[in-house]
């Protein structure tokens, strides 16, 4: 099956800093989603982005499908951005999302 690798595994930032999270995948994808899992465990949809670029406030994402990677940008980070960021994909004839192992983000005040 498809492999999804996220980097870095852990990231500690000072409030106000910017960051870039990366997701590499091993095959072409039909669906790519970025999620934020908050400290209470809830998975929040950030982007549905199998290709192209999207922006939502301080967050933006870019997927370069031909080169099999996606980037999540967080600008002017806030303590509420802390949590785990997951990238997940659907590839080929599969119908379920395959998740990466996540990036644990901690934003310090």
């Amino acid at each position, binding site marked *: 099956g498809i492999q999804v690798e996220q980097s870095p595994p852990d990231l500690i930032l000072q409030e106000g800093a910017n960051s870039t999270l990366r997701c590499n995948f091993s095959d072409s994808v039909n*669906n790519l989603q970025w999620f934020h899992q908050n400290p209470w465990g809830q998975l929040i949809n950030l982007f549905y982005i199998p290709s192209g670029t999207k922006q939502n406030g301080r967050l933006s994402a870019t997927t370069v499908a031909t080169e099999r990677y996606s980037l999540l940008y967080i600008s002017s980070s806030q303590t509420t951005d802390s949590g785990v960021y997951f990238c997940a994909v659907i590839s080929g004839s599969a*119908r*379920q999302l395959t998740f*990466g192992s996540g990036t644990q983000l901690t934003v310090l005040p």
Partner: protein
Amino acid sequence: GAGVSQSPSNKVTEKGKDVELRCDPISGHTALYWYRQRLGQGLEFLIYFQGNSAPDKSGLPSDRFSAERTGESVSTLTIQRTQQEDSAVYLCASSLRSAGELFFGEGSRLTVL
């Protein structure tokens, strides 16, 4: 409903007991998924339902796990003879169409003593 609804939110049970977890998908969503997340880990796919098609059960870890869904409505995940390694958060998701954008519920946290 407005979002995916799961119940119970927390369940503590004794080893060997059976448990049932319930998921109510977003109205109109034809696809429904169950995932498991162990503490500090990523999400593992368990089972997928699409309309009236046969479910994809390829992720179920053992025959103690089963799930049902009637049409495009509520689904139940049943774990028989629970073991301590079944302790995890069980997450349900739904999507408007097959391989579309998934939306997750808040999960059911299962603790097996």
